[in-house]
């Protein structure tokens, strides 16, 4: 499978701050590639470097097999983007906005093409209305129409669901899935929500403080073998003691609650064993270790990375 984006040792420094540090990753053709990290992790800086808004301090970016720094126009002709908010010309209509950006993308613009795009994002009836009268969700859909109007092979969406209501988020998610599955587009989507990436991405990268933490197929990274189980019992200390002689010794945390890591399929068996050991359970909750780890980035900087080994 051909690589659409190849980033090698990319870095960006703003004065003394390293926003992106030695970052390397690859996006393959047809991927829905999730770019995950907490706010300030370096996602937007990286995406802005992919779109030539920011010049890298070091490293290389190859897109469609060509160096971005020397083939900028040629590459950007094949890229559509929504960068953070879908900011458009508020004093112009949806149709005029779409027409302007289509022309700037270097394509021949026809009324049919523009109306088809507006229809695709459900805005054909608001074509002549000024963007200032649009809701956030409508602006976001128009932003996506702008990103798609020149039929790019690669679509980059930076936090596309920010500020949207649940229905708006679902609409955008469905649109991205359609782009990938029905139209064969490669999509890079950044988010600070693992749950969002998990639902649509085929591959993903997690970055923190500008550095890569982990990259791979979503299915592999969300492997059931990395399920974390939180256990609340009437006496956690006694329970921990009894568990130390069993096969369920893979503690992550011995505090309150007890926290174990195991394959998801083993959870019912473990509950049976705990009951057999006369440990009185109050609650058992399971979640994925990646999700826990990702949450720890936002809430507990001292957390030990489960994939460290």
């Amino acid at each position: 499978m051909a690589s659409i984006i190849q980033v090698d040792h990319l870095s960006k420094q703003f004065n003394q701050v390293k926003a992106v540090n030695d970052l390397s990753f690859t996006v393959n053709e047809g991927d829905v590639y999730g770019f995950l990290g907490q706010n300030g992790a370096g996602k937007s800086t990286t995406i802005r470097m992919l779109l030539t808004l920011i010049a890298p301090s070091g490293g290389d970016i190859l897109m469609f097999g060509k160096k971005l720094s020397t083939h900028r126009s040629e590459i950007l002709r094949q890229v559509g983007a929504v960068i953070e908010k879908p900011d458009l010309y508020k004093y112009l209509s949806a149709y005029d906005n779409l027409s302007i950006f289509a022309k700037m993308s270097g394509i021949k613009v026809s009324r049919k093409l523009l109306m088809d795009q507006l229809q695709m994002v459900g805005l054909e009836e608001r074509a002549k209305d000024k963007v200032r009268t649009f809701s956030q969700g409508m602006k976001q859909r128009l932003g996506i129409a702008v990103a798609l109007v020149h039929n790019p092979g690669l679509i980059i969406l930076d936090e596309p669901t920010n500020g949207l209501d649940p229905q708006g988020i679902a609409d955008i998610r469905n649109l991205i899935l359609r782009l990938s599955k029905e139209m064969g587009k490669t999509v890079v989507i950044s988010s600070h929500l693992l749950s969002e990436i998990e639902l649509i991405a085929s591959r993903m990268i997690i970055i923190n403080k500008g550095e890569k933490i982990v990259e791979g197929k979503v299915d592999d990274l969300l492997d059931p073998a990395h399920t974390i189980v939180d256990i609340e019992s009437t006496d956690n200390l006694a329970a921990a003691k009894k568990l130390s002689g069993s096969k369920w010794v893979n503690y992550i945390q011995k505090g309150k609650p007890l926290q174990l890591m195991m394959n998801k399929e083993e959870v019912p068996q473990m509950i049976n064993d705990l009951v057999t050991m006369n440990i009185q359970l109050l609650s058992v909750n399971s979640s994925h270790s990646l999700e826990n780890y990702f949450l720890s980035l936002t809430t507990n900087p001292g957390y030990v990375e489960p994939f460290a080994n």
Partner: protein
Amino acid sequence: MQIELFKISKRPRTYIAFAAITAIAFIFQFAFKADGQSYMDLVLQSVKDSFELEKAKAINGYFMCYIILNTLLIQVPILVALIAADSISGEANMGTLRLLISKPISRTQLILVKFAAATIFTILLLLWMAITALVISLLIFGADDMLIFRVKGEDSQILQITKDDILWRYFAAFGYATVALTVIAALSLFLSIFAENSIGPIIATVCIVIVCTIISNINVPIIDKNVKPFLFTSYLVGWKGFFYIGTNGEGVPIKGSLENWPSIRNSLLILILHIAVIVTASVLVFRKKDILS
């Protein structure tokens, strides 16, 4: 270019400039139509014994246009800044700059197109000024010989230009004013690169014009020699040179002549040099700029 002009034409603030010019021209025309004679009596008081003329004919369309231009060309830089200073900062403020830069057009192209659009706006503004100040004044007051009141050193002068020798001078003056105001457009564009809303660059442009104009009018030898020649504001009113008619040895005006063409030409070249330097600096700065807005 079409896109830029389309965007400018759709913005309400564009029409503020045209409305302001129309209003000022109308106020002058109305005031002179109602009571222009009093103004002429006052101005001609000191020379009435030495200068023979028909006062009624002195207030005519050409004269009115000259009066209006003297006033308007002080204010027009502000109107030009209103649009040109919005070029980049306005896009940054709306968030559309990110989208523009991610399109397959180069940053150099973008700046040059923005500059060209601001220049076309300036030309349109001056064309509108020509229509309201010259054409309308000619329709209201008619055409006749024009009197120019001029202070030269410590003397006051009145120059008389025959009516068949005036129109080309206006064309030339509007052409010169276009170049002069394009310097303001270039300066506003340059300043707009550093800002994320257009208020800052508009105020900065106006402040620079005011400060430089004050310096250009200070009569101190050291500033005359070392500072004034480098300030664009020293050349902004050079358009008046087209109305300073050349005279023969006996002081009789020579039709179709200029008193000091080399000075006008040099002023024009200096203004063009300013434009070239400022636009080049804009391109260089913008090419290196990280778009963080």
